[in-house]
């Protein structure tokens, strides 16, 4: 084990700093402001620090170390040139309060991204401000809320979400102050139009839904669902978490949606960094555009004295919509993430359709060979599809319900068995509507061989006896972690001897 807080080296060993430009003795602070005891931070030299974090990194699984089929998270390869680009001083060393003529390059990229996202989503205006998917949801629902307030429709206090929705949907709507109405999915995992009709009324503000849904199924009745909500005067919100399935195939605009968020970090490959950063822009139809948070970038031809700062004779300027809800993050969104996603977009251009086609190809192929290999190994009856369907989209679900019933093997057991085979486990126990659920999303950046091998290894895990699987994993840096112990014996920081 390597412990950061075991390091008690010489003071200032980490990195030597130049002398202050005035001696410390000339600085004056009253006693009430002076810190009395220093933080008990470690004293670690650079060689030890580099080794510590390298050691930690070796105890962490990333896309770079192996197949990461974590459903709903779109763990695709992160091209390295994007990291190089993000270190260019023209992005790393710029301040959001610099004047427009200092930032024409950044603004032009923002404009290009707004435009591209408007096209792929079929929306009229995009803002890049929200910094994560959940924040995008919150922002868009806030815009709809202000839209209704301005129209005097204060009675619209409810937001409808399917029971298969991501947890962020109801959480974001509740943060805006809406009451949540959850509707059950049909037995096949798709939206229940009758259930929707039963709850949609003049109190409906928004319906939040993702398509393909969280089971990876395309909601073919989406136009009908949109019509039901629009007929009672409500707005349709598209959760873009599953956007990777549909670029160039269909769009939220074509499906009747009024607002959408993008998880740029998923679809456009900002590295997920162990939990973030993300980027969650939103797009809306024209009637909601005035409510968006700024800044939004608009372009116009240059005027007389602007040529020396301009790019391609166009001027890019920040713009605040008239009835803007205000800000949801203090600055201009996660600019560094947007630059990486711009580089990713440039890599595909109009070939983004091919990207989605391959995401769907890989998911369906994996679904096929997973069942094939399980059958060939004689364990085909341990898994069933999470939902009946001919084709899935970018992800699919399976249920380990039969395995649980016949062998006492749970989805969690299989997940831990997969860790021992060198894989990240798929998402487990979500969506809640599928018992013993595994949600599998291979993404388009995995080869056929990887998918074939994973399918065979998955079948091998199913052949392992329950007792052995309950004990898995055994090859990982630690074995099954006791989460109940962690919650009952809370230790949220290093326990110092002198505490």
């Amino acid at each position, binding site marked *: 084990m390597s412990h950061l807080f075991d390091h008690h080296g010489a003071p200032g060993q980490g990195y030597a700093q130049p002398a202050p430009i005035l001696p410390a003795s000339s600085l004056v602070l009253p006693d009430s402001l002076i810190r009395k005891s220093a933080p008990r931070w470690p004293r670690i030299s650079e060689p030890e620090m580099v080794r510590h974090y390298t050691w930690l990194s070796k105890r962490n699984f990333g896309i770079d170390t192996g197949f990461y089929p974590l459903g709903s998270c779109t763990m695709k390869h992160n091209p390295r040139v994007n990291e190089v680009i993000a270190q*260019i001083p023209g992005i790393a*060393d710029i301040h959001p309060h610099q004047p427009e003529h200092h930032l024409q390059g950044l603004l032009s990229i923002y404009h290009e991204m707004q435009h591209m996202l408007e096209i792929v989503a079929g929306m009229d205006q995009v803002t890049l401000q929200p910094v994560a998917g959940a924040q995008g949801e919150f922002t868009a629902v806030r815009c709809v809320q202000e839209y209704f307030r301005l129209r005097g429709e204060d009675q619209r206090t409810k937001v409808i979400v399917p029971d298969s929705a991501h947890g962020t949907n109801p959480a974001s709507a509740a943060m805006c102050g809406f009451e949540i109405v959850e509707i059950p999915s049909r037995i096949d995992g798709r939206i229940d139009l009758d259930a929707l009709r039963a709850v949609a009324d003049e109190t409906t503000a928004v319906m939040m839904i993702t398509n393909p849904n969280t089971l990876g199924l395309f909601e073919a009745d989406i136009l009908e669902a949109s019509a039901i909500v629009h007929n009672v005067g409500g707005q349709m919100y598209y959760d873009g978490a599953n956007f990777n399935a549909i670029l160039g195939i269909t769009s939220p605009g074509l499906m009747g949606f009024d607002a959408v968020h993008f998880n740029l970090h998923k679809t456009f490959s900002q*590295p997920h960094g162990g939990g973030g950063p993300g980027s969650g822009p939103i797009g809306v139809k024209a009637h909601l555009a005035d409510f968006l948070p700024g800044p939004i970038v608009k372009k116009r031809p240059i005027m007389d004295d602007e040529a020396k700062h301009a790019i391609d004779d166009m001027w890019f300027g920040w713009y605040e919509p008239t009835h803007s809800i205000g800000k949801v993050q203090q600055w201009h969104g996660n600019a560094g993430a947007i630059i990486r996603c711009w580089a990713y977009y440039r890599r595909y251009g109009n070939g983004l359709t091919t990207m989605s086609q391959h995401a769907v190809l890989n998911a369906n192929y994996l679904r096929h060979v997973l069942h094939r290999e399980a059958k060939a190994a004689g364990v085909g009856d341990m898994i069933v599809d999470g939902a009946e369907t001919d084709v899935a989209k970018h992800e699919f679900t399976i249920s380990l319900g039969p395995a649980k019933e016949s062998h006492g093997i749970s989805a969690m057991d299989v997940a831990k068995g997969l860790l021992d085979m060198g894989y990240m486990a798929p998402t487990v126990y979500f969506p809640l509507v599928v018992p013993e659920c595994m949600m599998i999303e291979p993404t388009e950046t995995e080869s056929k061989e990887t998918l074939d091998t994973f399918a065979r290894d998955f079948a091998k895990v199913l052949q392992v006896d329950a007792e052995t699987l309950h004990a898995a994993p055994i090859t990982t840096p630690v074995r099954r972690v006791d989460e109940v112990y962690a919650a009952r014996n809370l230790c949220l920081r290093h326990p110092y001897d002198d505490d």
Partner: protein
Amino acid sequence: MVDQLPNLGREAEMLAIMGMSSIEDLFADVPDEVRMKGPLPLRDAQSEEEIIADARRLLGSNVALGERVSFLGAGLYRNYVPAAVFQLITRGEFLTSYTPYQPEVSQGMLQAMWEFQTLISELVGLPIANLSLYDGSTAAAEAITCCVRVHTRKATQKDTVYVSELTPPDRMSVVENYCQGAEIKIKLLRHNPDGTVNLSSAKDAAGSCGVYVEQPNPIGILDGGLPLLKEIIGEHTALIVAVQPISLGLVEAPGAYGADIVVGEGQPLGSPITGGGPIYGIFACSQPYLRLMPGRIVGRSIDVDGKEAFCLTLSTREQHIRRHRATSNICTNETLIALMGAMHMSLLGPEGLHDLAVRNMAACTLGKQKLASIEGIHLPHASSHHFQEFVIEVPGTASDCLAYLDSVGIVGGFDVHRWYADRPNWLLVSFTDQTQANQIELLAEHLEVWAADQGVTA
């Protein structure tokens, strides 16, 4: 031609295995009425070489602050971040991982974040820290909604918080957006003309759910009165203090004077400014707030063999479990940037943090000495204590003054008029460990020229 797709050219083979003949078969479930017709009206794909060339051209046209002499801060600060941080952060095991739902293969990031929690906890003087929020503004907003959840039942001023009237409008706007859904009433906490909190009007906040102040405050003042605030507002009103983390190398940790929640922009520790994001928000609190706080938390535990192991804990507060009753909707956060913060803090150590704080304050102090002596330039808070930035009152408008400074290659600071409508001639000038004495001289010279040109004679 696109790359990045290992199965390009093998579609037919894979489809045949599935008993399909065309990619179109995979989209048979998408009704024709919603199908996009024709190719996407977007530019053609580019190669890596072309992308990087375009990136260099476009981003190269931005003015990077390192190319100029810069005194722009106002919430984001250019401190030196050691090279080891940037090198280590590129390790794919960190960079390309996600939320550690499977702790057995995520021990590295989990332990690093548990260490981050400890570093932040020690820095601010409170026992609990989460592993980051989006930025300082959302951390402030989440702290305010959190304190209402904790205190409103017993509060005499229900659903009410007092927020410093100096809070910049762009930060306040975030707070308002986060608060409106819970119908939280935001009242303004008054300040004295010298920029310090008006302690006698702070009595009005007693019995409310919380008080939000910043130290140093948005115009750079270190307020010696803050340590008295907790006693004034009382035990059942949360004291929320937003900090510039590096200042805590010199300035008292808010936990030591009764703060219940400490938030802040973590950026100066570990991260370049990056146009304002991705950066990370700090959130730390005391015990009573633990179960109603936002964000992910790592706990130390054991594995089945009794070996030390780490995992996410107290998840029942979070959206993926609690759904619409969650304490926050946050899911994806800023873990990687927080990791950069942890690396920077590790290398600094307690003495390094102190030295870094001294360097910031020394530059500010020298700047104050130089600028205060310029005829026509007035320091409205000259007698106050400043950590790394202060306001100067310029002849003419701050906006025109900044344009002049820009014309001579100086990014002169922040036009406070963008925050406060009644301050057209306040310029907020910031100093960091990177500020050199000759740069301050240059600023002083040009401010002198500016003042003289405005008709103020020496």
